[in-house]
């Protein structure tokens, strides 16, 4: 018997608190016996692995064990004051007309949500309600896409309290974008939200997630979304991570994409103290086209990690990955991108580009692109750059009368533009460009 294998690494305060939270919450967490078993199995993954740390390759640059000093208590159901935050949250979308589904501290708030007169083919429920109803369709999909070995996902599965459950029936076009508004209240707590979106064959929908909360509060968010994109469906997904200054945000998008579909996803990250954004995308059907993009703007001591796995398991799909980050002060930006091309996935066309722009001498950018190719008739490539603003271009702008700070702002906008311009929805694209402009203005203190 290998004695060493049984020696547990000493648990951190956060690990102990998470284990206690699970033990205490377990009887009251929603769902029947099958879900309870799923939770228990997921918790075992966490119990065995602990929080991911730098010796776990996928978490090399985001040592959650070190970064998470403690685990906050599970959020209580929101009271009136907490709900008030949900009312104003998501305003950064500006004039974009959406159907709002509001979650405060991870709990669905029906009175702030717009679930009336749903378009034909659209069904919306909360996860807590669907689990309580023992929804069979939910059970058939939940946990099928999110990788169970990932500890962040495992914790989410073990502790998921609420979220959105959305179904778009075959052939339906939902004109109004669905906006999942996630807001944290003043009280620092932990929320575990899990959403499931099933878009059936030929359906079309746009899904926006925004995450925000108060500055100065050390709240913790673990949000996961499982997304099924049917054959010939067209799904646009946009995630805005605008958490408060001291928040810890871990979120996961796990998607399976069918044949001849169109899938666009864009993540905009500007908030949070520590952010880990995971994308696990599987191309299950032929000739699908996907644009996977992101823009990250960090300052102070912010840390944001985007970890992407694009798994091409079917023939003839095209994926484009473009991730841009702008790092000021002592900020730390991480991009890990892995493209997998399975043996049968001939004629895959996948190109990944990641660029970091460093605005200070003490910022750090880590880029780790990987290609794993098991087919022989593919076009795959990746590129990664990190560098400072181009002084020649800045001089050109200044020579035309543009002050240094404005010249830099123009160049930074241009740098991010390539990623943002991929968003098809004009209103949303403009709203995000405005967010970028606001960030740049705050930077130079206009």
């Amino acid at each position, binding site marked *: 018997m290998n004695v060493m294998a049984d020696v547990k690494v000493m648990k951190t305060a956060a690990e102990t608190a998470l284990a206690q939270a699970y033990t205490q919450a377990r009887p009251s967490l929603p769902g029947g016996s099958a879900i309870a078993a799923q939770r228990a199995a997921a918790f075992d993954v966490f119990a065995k692995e602990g929080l991911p740390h730098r010796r776990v390759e996928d978490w090399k640059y985001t040592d959650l064990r070190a970064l998470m000093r403690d685990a906050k208590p599970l959020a209580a159901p929101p009271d009136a004051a907490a709900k008030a935050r949900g009312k104003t949250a998501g305003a950064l979308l500006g004039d974009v007309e959406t159907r709002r589904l509001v979650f405060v501290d991870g709990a669905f708030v029906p009175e702030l949500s717009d679930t009336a007169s749903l378009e034909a083919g659209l069904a919306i429920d909360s996860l807590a309600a669907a689990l309580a109803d023992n929804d069979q369709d939910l059970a058939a999909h939940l946990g099928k896409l999110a990788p169970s070995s990932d500890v962040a996902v495992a914790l989410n599965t073990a502790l998921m309290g609420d979220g959105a459950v959305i179904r778009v029936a075959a052939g339906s076009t939902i004109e109004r974008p669905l906006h999942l508004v996630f807001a944290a209240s003043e009280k620092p707590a932990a929320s575990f939200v899990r959403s499931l979106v099933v878009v059936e064959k030929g359906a079309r929908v746009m899904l926006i997630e925004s995450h925000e909360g108060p500055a100065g509060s050390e709240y913790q968010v673990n949000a996961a979304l499982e997304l099924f994109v049917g054959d010939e469906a067209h799904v646009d997904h946009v995630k805005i991570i605008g958490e408060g200054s001291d928040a810890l945000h871990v979120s996961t998008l796990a998607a399976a994409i069918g044949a001849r579909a169109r899938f666009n996803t864009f993540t905009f990250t500007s908030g949070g103290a520590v952010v880990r954004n995971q994308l696990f995308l599987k191309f299950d059907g032929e000739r699908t086209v996907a644009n996977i993009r992101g823009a990250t703007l960090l300052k102070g001591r912010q840390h944001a990690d985007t970890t992407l796995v694009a798994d091409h398991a079917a023939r003839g799909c095209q994926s484009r990955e473009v991730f841009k980050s702008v790092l000021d002060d002592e900020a730390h930006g991480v991009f890990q991108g892995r493209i997998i091309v399975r043996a049968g996935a001939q004629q895959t066309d996948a190109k990944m580009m990641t660029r970091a722009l460093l605005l200070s001498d003490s910022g750090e950018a880590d880029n780790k692109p990987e290609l794993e190719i098991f087919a022989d008739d593919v076009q795959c490539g990746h590129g990664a750059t990190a560098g400072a603003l181009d002084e020649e271009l800045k001089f050109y*702008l200044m020579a*035309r*009368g543009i002050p240094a700070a404005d010249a830099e702002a123009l160049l930074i906008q*241009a740098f991010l533009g390539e990623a943002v311009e991929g968003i098809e929805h004009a209103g949303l694209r403009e709203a995000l460009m405005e967010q970028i402009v606001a960030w740049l203005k705050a930077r130079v203190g206009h």
Partner: protein
Amino acid sequence: MPLLEIRNLHVEIDGKEILKGLDLTVNAGDVHAIMGPNGSGKSTLAYVLAGKAGYEPTAGTVLFDGRNIFDMEPDERAAAGLFLAFQYPLEIPGVATMTFLRTALNAQRKRRGEAELSTPEFLKKVREVAKKLGIEQDMLRRGVNVGFSGGEKKRNEILQMALLEPRLAVLDETDSGLDIDALKIASEGVNRLRGPTRSFVVITHYQRLLTYIVPDVVHVLSKGRIVRTGGKDLALELEARGYAQYQEEAAA
């Protein structure tokens, strides 16, 4: 008071002295041509005037309208009315030409305490100027100079100059890379701007440009100094006889 007064200007680049005591006085309304062989310091002079990093003087003074330009950032110099048409205009992907022009114009106006131009006023102005220079509307929507030919880039420089209406424009080899038609269009753009209060320093290697932009004064720059000054006929003489004699004189 002269508009531009350069006295005993010395400039080193990477430890090598390029300008070695250059003197130049340009009065309001005058067009000066600076001609000289490659490596004589023509482009260095242009960059020093515009304020490029690394092009600082080791000795001498440059007064623009009585102000010491070395106390001014490049954008301040531009707002004060100093313009450099670049020899190699840069491409700025992601910044639309229109945005660039508008930001530049309004930044200058703001610094001078003038009101910003309204969108219709601005558009009208750009369209008028662009039309005269044969610049298509489509080009204005693209990123600055992105996908432009060499000639289009040079015309875009003239467009910027026409829009910004500087008091002193330094044209750094605006003729290089231009065919004869583009040269005429660019020259006409410059000539339209000539007037009693606006001055030009036209830097060129060849006389050809000066048949279209006729200078008041021609200088020969060699090895970092003005070695000869004359009227417009001096350009023709240089075309016929070359620069060799001046290079020898400067070396002597």
